[in-house]
C-alpha cells in the first residue's frame, strides 16, 4: 500500500472541483486509458484575467485524482501568468509530498495545466505536445520532457525519471538513452549503474512492439497525422481501444454526423495507421 499523506487522502476521498465547465476558456487533456491515467482540466477567467473557476475529470489512481483536485485549488484566483509558473513540485508540495513512484501524477497535472493555457491562447486542442525526439516508445515520452523533469526536480537516476514521467517504465529498452541524458545534464551528480548502459546491446531489434508501444505509436500517428485535419473541419477522433490488430476509434463533433465518415475512416485513418504502424491493422468505428 502506498504511503499517502493525509492531504493526498483528503483530496482523494473528497476531491474538489470535479466536473465539467460548459463554456470553458481553456481545456487541457493529457494521458490516455492505455497509460492508466488521464486528466482533463478546464478553467474560466474573470474580467480581470484571473481564473475564476477550474474543474477536472480524471481517470486514474488515488494520487492522480488528488493531484488534479489540488491543482484546481491552486490555480483558482491566479492569472494565467501566475498559474503557468506552477511546477509539478509545487503540486506535490501542496499535497505534502507524493510517493516517488507517483510523482508522474504531479507531472500530469502540470502538463494538463500547460495544455489548457495553450488551448486558451491559441485555440489549439492538442493535448500534450510532442516536442523533440521520442525516447520512451512505451509511454511516448520525448527527450525534451525527460530533460525538463530532470532539471526541474534535480533527478539523478533512471528510476527517478521513470517515477516522474513514466519514461523507461515499460520495456526498459530506452534506459541507456535516459541514462545518457541524465549524464549530460547532471554530469558527475548522475547516478547510473553499469547495467543500465548495456541493456540496449542485449535488446533484440527484431522483437515485435509491445502492446503499449504499439498503442503509443498509434496514438502519435493519430495526433500528428489525422487529428489536425479533422479538427480543421470542426471534428475530432478518439482512440477507444486496440485489441490485437483491431483499432477501435470513435468520431466526435462534426465527424460523428458526417455522412462520409465511412469513407474518411477507411481511406484515411486505416491507411495512415498501416503506413506508420503495421500493415495488419484494421480500423473499426464505435458509433457514439
Amino acid at each position, binding site marked *: 500500500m502506498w504511503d499517502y499523506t493525509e492531504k493526498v487522502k483528503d483530496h482523494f476521498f473528497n476531491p474538489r472541483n470535479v466536473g465539467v465547465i460548459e463554456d470553458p476558456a481553456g481545456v487541457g487533456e493529457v494521458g490516455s486509458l492505455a497509460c492508466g491515467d488521464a486528466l*482533463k482540466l478546464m478553467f474560466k477567467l474573470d474580467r480581470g484575467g484571473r481564473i475564476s473557476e477550474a474543474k477536472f475529470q480524471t481517470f*486514474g489512481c*488515488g494520487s492522480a485524482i488528488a493531484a488534479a483536485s489540488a491543482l484546481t485549488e491552486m490555480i483558482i484566483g491566479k492569472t494565467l501568468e501566475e498559474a503557468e509558473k506552477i511546477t509539478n513540485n509545487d503540486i506535490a508540495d501542496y499535497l505534502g509530498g507524493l510517493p516517488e513512484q507517483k510523482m508522474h501524477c504531479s507531472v500530469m497535472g502540470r502538463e494538463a495545466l500547460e495544455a489548457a493555457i495553450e488551448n486558451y491562447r491559441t485555440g489549439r486542442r492538442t493535448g500534450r505536445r510532442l516536442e523533440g525526439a521520442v525516447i520512451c516508445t512505451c509511454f511516448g515520452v520525448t527527450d525534451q520532457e525527460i530533460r525538463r523533469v530532470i532539471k526541474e526536480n534535480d533527478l539523478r537516476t533512471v528510476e527517478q525519471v521513470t517515477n516522474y514521467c513514466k519514461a523507461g517504465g515499460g520495456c526498459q529498452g530506452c534506459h541507456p538513452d535516459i541514462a545518457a541524458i541524465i549524464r549530460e545534464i547532471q554530469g558527475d551528480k548522475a547516478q547510473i549503474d553499469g547495467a543500465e548502459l548495456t541493456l540496449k546491446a542485449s535488446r533484440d531489434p527484431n522483437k515485435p512492439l509491445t502492446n503499449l508501444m504499439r498503442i503509443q505509436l498509434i496514438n502519435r500517428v493519430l495526433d500528428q497525422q489525422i487529428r489536425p485535419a479533422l479538427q480543421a473541419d470542426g471534428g475530432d477522433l478518439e482512440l477507444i481501444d486496440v485489441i490485437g490488430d483491431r483499432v477501435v476509434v470513435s468520431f466526435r463533433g462534426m465527424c460523428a454526423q458526417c455522412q462520409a465518415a465511412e469513407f474518411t475512416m477507411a481511406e484515411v485513418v486505416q491507411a495512415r495507421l498501416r503506413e506508420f504502424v503495421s500493415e495488419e491493422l484494421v480500423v473499426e468505428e464505435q458509433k457514439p
Partner: protein
Amino acid sequence: MKNIYLDNNATTRVAEEVVEEMLPYFSNLYGNASSMHSFGGNIRHKIDYARQQAAQLLNCGPEELIFTSGGTESDNTAIRSVLELNPNKRHIVTTRVEHPAVRTMARHFQRRGYRLTELPVDAYGRIDLDQLEAAISNDTALVTIMHANNETGVIFPVDKIAPLVKSKGVLFHTDAVQAVGKMPYNLADIPVDLLSLSGHKLHGPKGIGILYVRRGTPLSPLIMGGHQEFSRRAGTENTPGIVGLGKACELAQKNMEEENGRVRQMRDWLETHLLRVCPDARVNGDRESRLPNTTNISFEYVEGEAILLLLDQLGIAASSGSACTSGSLEPSHVLRAMGVPFTAVHGSIRFSLSRYNTIDEIEYVIRETPGVIKRLRQISMFSSPPDAGAPRERKPRLDRISG
C-alpha cells in the same frame, strides 16, 4: 471498522489450529532435527509427521516432498534443476500468464540463450492443447504450466497436460500454489514430475512451501550446504513452518468440501450481484473452469487503485490488476494476454474468498461496491457511449505462438 478480507489469493489467514500447533516449536521445542539427542530426535519425528500430512493431501509418497521457503523457491528450484540436468536441451515451454516466480526465471534463461515458448491464451484465459503439443520438440527440456491462475482463478487442465507432455518424454512442472487446498489433488493419477506449493495460500504460515519431486526424477539442489531434506535442500529446517504447513494440509483436506460448496456459492452470489448492479462490468476468466474462491471483475472507465482505496475505507480488502497497484507502470500481464482491453484491465478487481468469509460479509460488499464504482465514474471523463447497449461479446481468439 469492518475487516472483510477478500484477498485470499495474495495470502490467507493462518488457521488457529495451525498457530496452536506451531507455537511450541518457537519456544520449548527448539531442537535441531539433525542433532544426535532425543531433543533433536523428537523434532525429526514431528517433521516426518508433517511430511505425511502433506503427502496425504496430494496422495503421494512423503519422501517425494521437499520443504522449501515457499512457492517461489520451489518454482526456481524446479526450473533451474531441470535445465541444469539436461544441458543438451535448450527449449522451455510455458504460458504467457504464469506467476512471476516462473515467468521471470524462464526469461532469465531466455536471456542466456534458451529458446522460450510462452503459449498464448484465449479470451477466457485458456490454452490450446494442440498448440502445446506442437510447441514441444526434441530440444524441449521442460514444460512448466501453472495449475490455477492467481489473478483470474482459471484452471488449466493439468490432468490432460501432464500425460501429453510425458508422452513426448519431456519433464513437466506445475506451479500449483493456488490450486492445492482448493481442489482435490491426486498425484497418483496425474503424471506431474515437479510441483510447487506454498503454505500461506492454504491457511498455513508464510516462509514455508513444498517442492514435490516424483520418485525417480533427479533433482539438482538450489541451496547447498547440508544433508537436510534428503540432501536436496540444505539449511536447518524451519520447524515451526513445517509443522504449521503439515497441519494446514490436514485442515485443507478436511475443508475441501466447504471450499467447493459454501465458498463457491458465496463467490457466485457476489459475482452475479455485482454484475447485475454495476453497468459496464465484466468477468475476466473462464467461468466453466475456475477456482471456487476467485472472481476477477473489470469495472470499465475507472482505475483499480482508486477502487481499492475506497473499498479499503469501507473495510474491504481486495486486489487489482491495474498498473498503479503492480508497482510497475504496466498493468496485469495475465489480463493483457487474454486480450482484455485496456479500458477494462486498469479497472480490474480480484475478489478471492476463503472459508473464513461469511455471507453477511459478502452481502455488505454487494451493497457497498456499486457506490464506489459510481463515485469514481462521476470523476472519470471516460464512459460508455450513451446507447451502446450490452457490452459486445468477445470471441475467444488465439494469437500466434511466440517462439
